[in-house]
């Protein structure tokens, strides 16, 4: 192609402009780093690393710039940056749903080689967490400090009032099966509470029944019984009016954690008993839900929470850390990754402060027995989650998860809304998958 010729033309043309543009960007960054300290750049999709970065800055006397990109745009934004190397970060994080794809590409530096030699410390990590960072050719590309089994976080005061106990084990019994869960939901409803904020919460307890990857090694989409059940569970929740119509991640979802929210205003004709306010009993959240979702959004109900298990184990999310293979700051980047994933002192503080459940065994072994979380009324969530972590099967993670989960979720919603029958919704889901990934065959073709 004639790209070379064009390049010459353009470079002449934009010489002046490029200078202007550069001025601009250097102005921008000089606002942030006064002085000549080394600067480490980090990209992530949440602010959860902020305290760690503060600690790192102090200890190493360097500057760290954290760039947060909303998770929905994260891969779309990051990929071209990594591909071109322009403005690429030294460290970037990957959520569980992206990790599988990214370890196969050359963007992350390989860590099981000199001078990092992570294989030597691999025994210190919860196995599945470590193995998820390994790609098909055996290279370890990323590490994580956390493990992410899920549970059900519920309000103690409401449990006491309606269910007669706030003890996690007793409440766990009432969630032990699908039927028990819906029964509990009905009880709560009679008392004017709602089981879950929205229908999304049940996906874990439907799809977690028989976990399978979305797409197998032959590029075939797998539809499981559990996934099909998800449609029915969600519909049932809606029909029996067990939710508060507060969709996941919406302002109402967050507000419902800390008190009553406005509900079915105007529905009084339908149900004379209905109030205009309603409180939510429980949220299905994993380990990180405690410190990055509940704690920052809760004031009045702090201390009134506890965590227990649902009908089946599940896991959700997790953040992996790796350094950009083209980084010029690898030593410093490695320092940071080590601190975040393999520094006993720092991680002990981190765990005690945030309640995050670590994947680094030397620390978890040390603190798990007498861990007590004030936010959960003194409950030891550590032993609970570490037990749940044993049940995690990470082989179900695929590189398609983010997009396919989104498509599946929207089809479940359409079924719940009554727009489509279950068959239509499933069929439409297959069509959507094929449309985005023409190489995948769906069950209706197999």
């Amino acid at each position, binding site marked *: 192609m004639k*790209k070379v010729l*064009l*390049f010459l033309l*353009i470079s002449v*043309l*934009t010489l002046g*402009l*490029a200078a*202007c*543009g550069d001025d*601009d*960007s250097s102005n*921008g960054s000089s606002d942030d780093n006064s002085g000549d300290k080394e600067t480490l750049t980090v990209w992530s999709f*949440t*602010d959860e690393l902020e305290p760690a970065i503060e600690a790192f800055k102090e200890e190493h006397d360097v500057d760290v710039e954290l*760039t*947060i*990109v*909303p*998770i*929905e*745009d994260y891969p779309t*934004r*990051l990929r*071209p*940056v990594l*591909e*071109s190397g*322009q*403005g690429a970060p030294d460290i970037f994080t990957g959520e569980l749903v992206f990790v599988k794809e990214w370890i196969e590409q050359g963007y992350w530096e390989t860590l099981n080689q000199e001078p990092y030699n992570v294989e030597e410390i691999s025994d210190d990590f919860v196995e599945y967490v470590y193995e998820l960072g390994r790609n098909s050719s055996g290279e370890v590309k990323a590490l994580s400090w956390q493990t992410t089994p899920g549970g059900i976080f519920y309000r103690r005061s409401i449990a006491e009032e309606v269910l007669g106990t706030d003890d996690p084990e007793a409440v766990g019994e009432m969630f032990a099966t699908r039927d028990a869960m819906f029964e509990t939901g009905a009880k709560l409803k009679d008392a004017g509470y709602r089981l879950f904020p929205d229908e999304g919460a049940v996906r874990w307890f439907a799809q977690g029944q028989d976990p399978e990857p979305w797409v197998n090694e032959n590029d075939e989409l797998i539809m499981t019984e559990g996934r099909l059940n998800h449609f029915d569970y969600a519909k049932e929740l809606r029909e029996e009016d067990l939710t508060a119509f507060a969709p996941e*991640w*919406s*302002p*109402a979802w*967050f*507000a419902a954690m*800390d*008190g*009553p*929210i*406005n509900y079915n*205003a105007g529905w009084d004709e339908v149900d004379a008993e209905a109030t205009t*306010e309603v409180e939510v009993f429980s949220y299905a959240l994993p380990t990180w839900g405690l410190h990055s979702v509940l704690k920052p*959004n809760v004031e009045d109900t702090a201390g009134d929470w506890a965590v227990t298990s649902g009908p089946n184990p599940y896991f959700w999310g997790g953040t992996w850390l790796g350094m950009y293979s083209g980084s010029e700051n690898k030593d410093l980047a490695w320092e940071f990754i080590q601190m975040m994933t393999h520094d006993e002192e720092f991680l002990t503080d981190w765990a005690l402060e945030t309640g995050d459940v670590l994947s680094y065994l030397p620390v978890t072994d040390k603190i798990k027995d007498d861990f007590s979380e004030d936010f959960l009324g003194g409950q030891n969530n550590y032993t609970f989650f570490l037990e749940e972590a044993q049940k995690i099967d990470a082989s179900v993670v695929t590189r398609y998860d983010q997009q396919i989960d989104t498509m599946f979720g929207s089809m479940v919603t359409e079924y719940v809304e009554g727009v489509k029958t279950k068959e239509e919704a499933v069929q439409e889901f297959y069509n959507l998958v094929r449309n985005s990934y023409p190489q995948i065959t769906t069950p209706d073709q197999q």
Partner: protein
Amino acid sequence: MNEQTKKKNKIIKSIFYTLLVLLVIISFIPFYMMIVNATRSNADILRNGFTLIPGQAIVDNYNVLLEYMNLWRGFANSLIVALAVTVLSSYFSALTAFGFSVYKFKGSNFLFVTILVLMMVPGQLGLIGFYDIMRTFGFLDTYIPLIVPPIASTFTVFFLRQFLSSVLHSSLIEAARIDGAHEFTIFHKIGVPMMMPAISTMAIFSFIGSWNNYILPLVVLFSPEKYTLPVMMGALRGSQVAQNLGAMYLGIAISVVPIMTAFIFLSKYIISSISAGAVKE
């Protein structure tokens, strides 16, 4: 005319004025809701629905917003880009229009017709190729893809040329040449002032177009500190700010209110430009 018709006209008029005022109110209600809600806390909005009276949470909302995203930065970015686009497209379009009107050279008709034809091509047609080229040149995540291409604004060239052909007197240029002026001097000293009314009309269009452009910066910019305002607004939706309705409303208000204020001072000018742009067509 007799008294009765006059009276009748008066009644009709007052009905119409009422309707017009109603339409104005409808136009402004969304902005009013926005401003009221920007001062209320998330819990307040969710628990109490809508009220006409502002709340007291504006400072909290502002802090939540700024903690996550510096909208003023987006403002500055958008302003820089829009100004650069306006200046470059105005200057180079004037240059091109002048070239087409003043000189008779081989192929000028063909080239001008090419411009006319390509004026009809929707901007999205070359998007994929455009993105690819920008990546090849390493211009992604810079303002170059936003600022440089408007140098070739077909519509502006077309408009300026039409304008120039109605106001240009060749005797003026001849006189300047006899005085020994260089062609570029003639352009700067005679051409530009002559085209000024039309240039300022088009400048307003360029500015508004660049200011509101969403898809192009969305595709070519990656670093949040370089986002223009529309992209920053889009990013707000998926961000932690979206957890707090009050902060969200405030963010939108910040992106809207300065423009409204500027418009109050410039409305006459802007509207006469739009009128001029339409009629010249």
